[in-house]
């Protein structure tokens, strides 16, 4: 530890801390542009100048390490003059276009100019102008505004791990860009907008939509992947306009994946905003009462074992529990949440969660990825692996179709034979065994198909064999794609004793099928005579097959609880009202239960949330996730020796369109056209 004095305050900080970090610890704000706590230090903007006693001139505090007994002054006339000088130079080439700049109101340069700017410029010469770059459909550039802090360059090299941006030319001609025009290929590119301190990189689809001071912010949870990224839902007058990440060191740090950020325009399209009833083969608009009564009449007299329910990937725990309670009260045990048919074993929680936890990745020293492409399935989680890899001393093995995961991996085959070899020993098995904290990460989507149960058992067995399952360390991890999946499993939304799974309910296995936001399976396989109720927010596969449509709320329009792939329970709050006649889903189910004469025992959200805790005590702990180890090595059902020689399929061929919201989003459609099915990317 080092002791130093900053503005008369004595602070003690770890050795190697920079003066800027020490200032922060002392609660003193130091202006900065290039410094970013999650990126390497560049020290090129010089805005963070402070005075250090005995130093001949002001020092850049972000790049200056503390020393014992150092005396730092951050608010002297000399410091202010120095910062003013830096600011004046920065503004020489910066356009005065704040009124038409999207960063206005949340611009570091604008804010600092209030403290350190002059009222006029002494620079009479022509300002330089820089050509804008085309970085693809997500990030808009106005490069004349760039102050060349190189945060974006460091972000793309260090966090995104793709090194696409750079600073070419030099001096007056220096430019930030890709040199050869190309769309940024990172799934995290939207974060560039957040880290750019000025308006050089802004949100392209959001251009000129709103000013930050007009927006109301509500805390939410991203549901477009299973990471459980903490978000801030920004709306104006009940209109959700953009989504920003919220800091949560244990989950997403401060990043947000592009799908979660940019699918927001999908929330306004293809929405179900009133009820529909199919009459003589045609859907006709209906009122709520009419629709609910119609459903009640259809269900009347149907035996419980001929009724089934399937929940989708984006559904909150409250609604799933309400549907489960309803179906159980109707005598049904036909429940399923695994639309893809993945052979998940729900009998024990650590069989289906990411047990090491996302923050735990920081401690791991060997990781084996099986049948998963975390870069697409969970970009923010992948960035955590990338971060761990940059810190050094991490070995990553990879079994799956070749992919650039943004960090080096040891390829161990493309399918199950690779896993079989590891189980028999081999070089990477040794690496895992020697590792102090090995992790096995299995893609939940790899459990689809007839090898699923065997794969799950085999991966668990490997984890046990290599010492990844210990009382002090749980190294077995299932990586989910669906935000609602773990919550559904926690609530036991799986076939009850004697109940049918999804496949059993298809092809006429049930007479009444309640789909709660379930669109990700082949709805054509539902029996022709099955009466289908689709409850959800988007007109997609499920609604297309429905006999009755009950319009529900999207995640931004309801207060709901989600459990991420780690098993972390988090709550998202309503930022807007559902459109038209649409209602929060649990309320629809509660209302229907009354119409059907089997009222659910909760009338408001607190009562339902209390019921959640009763259904599974994990729901009592919001946000926190205690670390745990594994003392019971008994594996999931399934024969670890029954593995075939199948290869893994691509777990997510199109990152940009995976659910009803992203499929409705024009921005995501554009991304698909740009990145997934490039028709012609020839430079014009």
């Amino acid at each position, binding site marked *: 530890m080092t002791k130093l004095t900053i503005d008369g305050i004595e602070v003690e900080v770890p050795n190697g801390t920079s003066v800027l970090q020490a200032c922060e610890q002392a609660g003193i704000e130091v202006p900065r542009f290039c410094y970013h706590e999650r990126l390497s230090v560049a020290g090129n903007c010089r805005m963070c100048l402070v005075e250090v006693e005995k130093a001949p001139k002001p020092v850049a505090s972000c790049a200056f390490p503390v020393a014992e007994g150092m005396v730092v002054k951050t608010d002297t006339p000399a410091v202010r003059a120095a910062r003013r000088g830096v600011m004046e130079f920065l503004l020489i080439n910066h356009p005065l276009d704040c009124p038409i700049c999207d960063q206005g109101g949340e611009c570091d340069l604008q804010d600092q100019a209030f403290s350190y700017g002059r009222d006029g410029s002494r620079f009479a010469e022509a300002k330089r102008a820089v*050509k804008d770059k085309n970085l693809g459909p997500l990030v808009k550039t106005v490069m004349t505004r760039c102050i060349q802090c190189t945060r974006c360059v460091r972000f793309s*090299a260090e966090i995104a791990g*793709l*090194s*696409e*941006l*750079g*600073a*070419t*030319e*030099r001096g007056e*001609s220096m*430019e930030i860009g*890709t*040199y*050869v*025009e190309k769309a940024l290929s990172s799934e995290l590119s939207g974060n560039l907008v957040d880290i750019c301190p000025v308006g050089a990189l802004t949100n392209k689809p959001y251009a000129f939509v709103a000013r930050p001071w007009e927006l109301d912010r509500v805390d939410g949870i991203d549901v477009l992947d299973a990471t459980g990224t903490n978000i801030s839902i920004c709306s104006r007058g009940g209109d959700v306009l953009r989504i920003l990440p919220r800091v949560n060191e244990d989950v997403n740090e401060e990043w947000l994946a592009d799908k979660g950020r940019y699918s927001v325009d999908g929330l306004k399209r293809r929405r179900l905003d009133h009820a529909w009833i199919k009459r003589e083969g045609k859907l006709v608009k209906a009122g709520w009462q009419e629709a609910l009564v119609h459903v009640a009449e259809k269900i009347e007299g149907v035996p419980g074992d001929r009724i089934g329910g399937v929940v989708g990937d984006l559904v909150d725990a409250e609604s799933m529990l309400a549907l489960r309670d309803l179906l159980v009260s109707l005598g049904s045990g036909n429940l399923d949440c695994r639309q893809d048919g993945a052979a998940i074993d729900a009998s024990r929680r650590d069989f289906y969660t990411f047990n090491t936890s996302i923050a735990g990745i920081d401690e791991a020293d060997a990781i084996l990825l099986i049948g998963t492409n975390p870069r697409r399935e969970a970009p923010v989680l992948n960035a955590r692996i990338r971060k761990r890899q940059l810190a050094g001393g991490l070995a990553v093995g990879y079994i799956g179709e070749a992919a650039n995961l943004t960090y080096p991996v040891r390829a161990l085959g493309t399918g199950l034979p690779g896993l079989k070899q590891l189980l028999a020993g081999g070089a990477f098995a040794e690496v895992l065994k020697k590792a102090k904290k090995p992790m096995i990460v299995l893609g939940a989507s790899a459990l689809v198909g007839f090898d699923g149960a065997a794969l799950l058992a085999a991966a668990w067995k490997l984890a046990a064999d290599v010492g990844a399952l210990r009382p002090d360390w749980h190294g077995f991890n299932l990586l989910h794609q669906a935000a609602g999946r773990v919550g559904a499993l926690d609530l036991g939304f799986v076939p009850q004793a004697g109940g049918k799974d999804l496949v059993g309910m298809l092809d006429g296995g049930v007479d009444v099928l309640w789909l709660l936001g379930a669109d990700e399976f082949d709805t054509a396989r539902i029996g022709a005579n099955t009466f289908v109720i689709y409850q959800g927010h988007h007109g997609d596969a499920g609604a297309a097959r429905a006999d009755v449509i009950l319009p529900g709320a999207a995640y931004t329009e309801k207060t709901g609880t989600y459990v991420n792939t780690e098993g972390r329970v988090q709550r998202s709050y309503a930022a807007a009202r559902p459109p038209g006649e649409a209602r929060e889903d649990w309320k629809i189910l509660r209302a229907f239960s009354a119409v059907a004469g089997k009222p659910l025992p909760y009338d408001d959200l607190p009562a339902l949330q209390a019921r959640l805790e009763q259904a599974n005590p994990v729901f009592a702990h919001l946000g926190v996730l205690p670390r745990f180890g594994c003392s019971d090595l008994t594996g999931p059902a399934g024969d670890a020796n029954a593995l075939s020689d199948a290869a893994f399929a691509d777990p997510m061929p199109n990152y940009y369109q995976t659910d009803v919201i992203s499929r409705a989003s024009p921005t995501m459609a554009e991304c698909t056209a740009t990145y997934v099915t490039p028709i012609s990317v020839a*430079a014009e």
Partner: protein
Amino acid sequence: MADVMSKSGTEPAEFVFDAESEALIAVILAKYPAERKASGTLPLLDVAQRQMARLTGSAWVPRVAMDVIAARLDVAAIRVYEVATFYFMYNTKPVGTYHLQICTTTPCWLRGSDEVVAACKKHTGIKHFGETSEDGMFTMTEVECLGACVNAPILQINDDFYEDVDGASTESLLAALRRGEKPKAGSVIGRQTSAPEGGPNTLLDTPSFQAGE
């Protein structure tokens, strides 16, 4: 600026190091530990530029060559683009057979670089810096101090410095090049390295040493 895509007409479709270059590369890369081979970026760019000069008569580094270098050194392509565009010595677009780099910084300017510029323009027909003559023989570039101010003004032609030039000597230099000759590099007025013009003019007397002094 150096937006190579807009000049795709000149950008070759591919670039492969020839045997002569490969021999040089082997020597260069042997100097660096394998995990530090990115240090080879600068010399490999030079090798590429010289190969282009040898094979096409124009010393420049096409973008495909930068990509080849990036792959060879295991670095992201943008890292090579950054280096290649940062240094003035790498030409990111084609230049003429003779690349005339005229220093116009203050010492050279005071000593008559305007005359040199005028002579180059007159002889080559080039109108502005950065352009190449119609016959593809000459490219004129304005450069900052070449570090040889003692013998100002300086005209650098490809790898050689021509010093103490003026309008007339510039024109005869260019005419010689056109004839395929290779004029001797260095001071065109016969100055010995950077000694005073016309021979030494200090320390002419031999100091006398006396015991005890």
